[in-house]
């Protein structure tokens, strides 16, 4: 499904408005508006706070995951890195290390995990699906192994409050600041740097990218390391927010991240996708969950909805390209009379 970009055939406003990303953003706005007026307590002050706290880890990890998927790879081990970093923070804290230092260690561990993934995928050339299924088990296993099934929960209030604090008096939690910073970094990286162009090139055709001078191996390796670090950071946040370091923390998070990324318009084939769509995808799932919970609907319904949205969004692209192909074939079937005679004349001499 590669798209060739010739000169822009449409005016700017059309290109800006009629994209997959805009569709998701519009959907998000629609759901928010609906919930504000129809869901009880949705317009309360706590809603935004809890929503942002809940989606923060998913949003954080979705950013590097976008880049990874754009290059045509995938990383299923992110939730396990979250768990491992959570356990490291807990264990080190229990042994008396101050939290900031423990956090640094956790970030380094995340980088190591990412490097391990990156090495196997980029330099040894193994398929990322298989590798990250393996590291999903390996890292999670290390996390659970280090702590057993107990949890470290006696974190000092100072740090757990920090994780949940709001900015001044607004209902917006502090974690939004690092998230915004990271968003900025990734937007600059992907859209405005040559590294980012390399990322998209690899996704479209990694051999061609190689020949244009993109260091495919190093790019992929760095993306996996980045994913590991960000996942570790999300793990630190998760631990402090819930005040509980457990090996089992965030189990299943990777599927939520991938679902949100795909919903946001990133193509699983690689080469296509934008950060703003992903942010909208994450928020969409978060808002729907929040609204459903306030309505008293069992949260299980959210599973069905995410699944349906996921399937619908991927099917719609494929369906439409199928329709476009069929339409093109149909348009080609009956040449106009002048064309026919020209063709006839041209083939005379054969």
């Amino acid at each position, binding site marked *: 499904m590669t798209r060739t970009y010739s000169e822009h*055939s*449409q005016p700017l406003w*059309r290109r800006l408005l*009629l*994209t*997959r990303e*805009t*569709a*998701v953003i*519009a*959907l998000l706005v*629609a*759901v928010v508006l*609906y919930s504000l007026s*129809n*869901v*009880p*307590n949705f317009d*309360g002050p*706590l*809603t935004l706070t*809890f929503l942002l706290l*809940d989606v923060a880890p998913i949003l954080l990890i979705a950013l590097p995951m976008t880049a990874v998927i754009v290059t045509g790879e995938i990383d299923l081990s992110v939730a396990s890195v979250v768990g491992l970093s959570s356990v490291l923070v807990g264990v080190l804290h229990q042994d008396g290390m101050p939290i900031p230092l423990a956090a640094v260690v956790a970030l380094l561990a995340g980088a190591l995990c990412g490097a391990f993934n990156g090495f196997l995928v980029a330099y040894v050339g193994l398929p990322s699906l298989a590798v990250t299924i393996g590291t999903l088990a390996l890292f999670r296993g290390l996390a659970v192994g280090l702590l*057993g*099934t*107990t*949890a470290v*929960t*006696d974190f000092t209030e100072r740090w*757990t*409050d920090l994780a*949940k604090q709001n900015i001044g008096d607004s209902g917006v939690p502090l974690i939004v600041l690092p998230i915004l910073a990271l968003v900025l970094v990734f937007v600059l990286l992907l859209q405005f740097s040559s590294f980012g162009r390399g990322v998209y090139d690899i996704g479209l055709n990694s051999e061609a990218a190689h020949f244009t001078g993109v260091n495919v191996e190093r790019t992929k390796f760095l993306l996996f390391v980045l994913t590991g670090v960000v996942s570790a950071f999300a793990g630190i946040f*998760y631990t402090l927010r*819930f*005040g*509980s370091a*457990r090996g089992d*923390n965030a189990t299943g998070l990777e599927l939520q991240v991938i679902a949100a990324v795909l919903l946001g318009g990133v193509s699983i084939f690689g080469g296509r996708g934008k950060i703003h769509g992903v942010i909208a995808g994450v928020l969409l799932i978060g808002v*729907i969950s929040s*609204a*459903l*919970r*306030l*309505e*008293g*609907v069992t949260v299980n*319904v959210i599973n069905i*909805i995410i699944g*349906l*949205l996921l399937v*619908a*969004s991927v099917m*719609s*692209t494929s*369906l*439409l390209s199928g*329709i*476009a192909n069929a*339409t*093109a074939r149909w348009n080609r079937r009956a040449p106009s009379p002048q064309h026919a005679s020209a063709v006839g004349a041209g083939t005379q001499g054969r």
Partner: protein
Amino acid sequence: MKFHSKRASAFAALGLSAALVLSACGGSDSASGSSDDGAMTVTFLPKNLGNPYFDTSDKGGKTAVAEFKGKFQEVGPQEASPDAQVQYINTAAQQGIKALVVSANDPKAIGDALNQARDAGTKVVTFDSDTEPQYRDLFVNQASAEGIAKSQVDLISEQIGDAGEVAVLSASANATNQNAWIDLMKKDLEANHPNIKLVDVVYGDDDDQTSFDKTAALLQSHPNLKGIISPTTVGIAAAARYLSDSDKKGKVALTGLGTPNQMREYVKNGTVTSFALWNPEDLGYLAAYAAKALVDGDIKGEEGDSFEAGKLGEYKVGPDNTVLLGDPFVFDAKNIDQFKF
């Protein structure tokens, strides 16, 4: 090529799914109880849903709430983990629920969320499994922890002849109540039963399949095991089911805390001789009335306060803002048919 119609169609497809989704959920504009108007909402938040013990206790709560004309709600996570509970506590705070009755998966982890709810005006009553005292207004305990631990140790020791290897199959590794009981059991064993050796404590996470598999693993790794104590109704039911089909039935004693309905078959077929519990329905009932007393301002939750608990009569608040239901009760083949929970 019709690019724009392709994108517009993509837009339409997503919009259509959105319309379907939105019409499917919450078509009712009930918007009921944005903040309470008259009826007091009481939300029960057990350790996890799908647990027969909590089904019974919450039923008791529901009866009580109906008696004093409140509104009853039961929410809970699928797995017995503290972070899953936090989200429900958050939702309760958002909804402005007047009373939250919760059985905690961890003594500290849900504390911050509870305090946030209390700041928003919710009264927090813990039951069955406590948090640290600063996070809740009142704790309704089924029996004293010492009494529960002693009854378990007494039962197993009389069933294995006061000598041999025993193991414990617990719930989740952080559960406040089970951990308190296990600690007291260890002390009791050390002090009073020198010939009984506790060789292992395994965690079934209050999940049936896990408890089943852990029982099998216990028997496989400790061939000389004489007895298993399972102070959780999910664990003892799963262990009993495994034992009754194995060649260790009758050779390895099993006791713990179980509900009569789940254990009846195994008491009758000889897998289990006797086990203990209290009436969880009464526990939930009492907790609901305690919550009501707090919300109405009848009591502040301090020691010495007393309140009416419907058909259970009057109850006093003890030290540590705790209310005790009563003593544990021992079930065996002779009396098990009399109980239907």
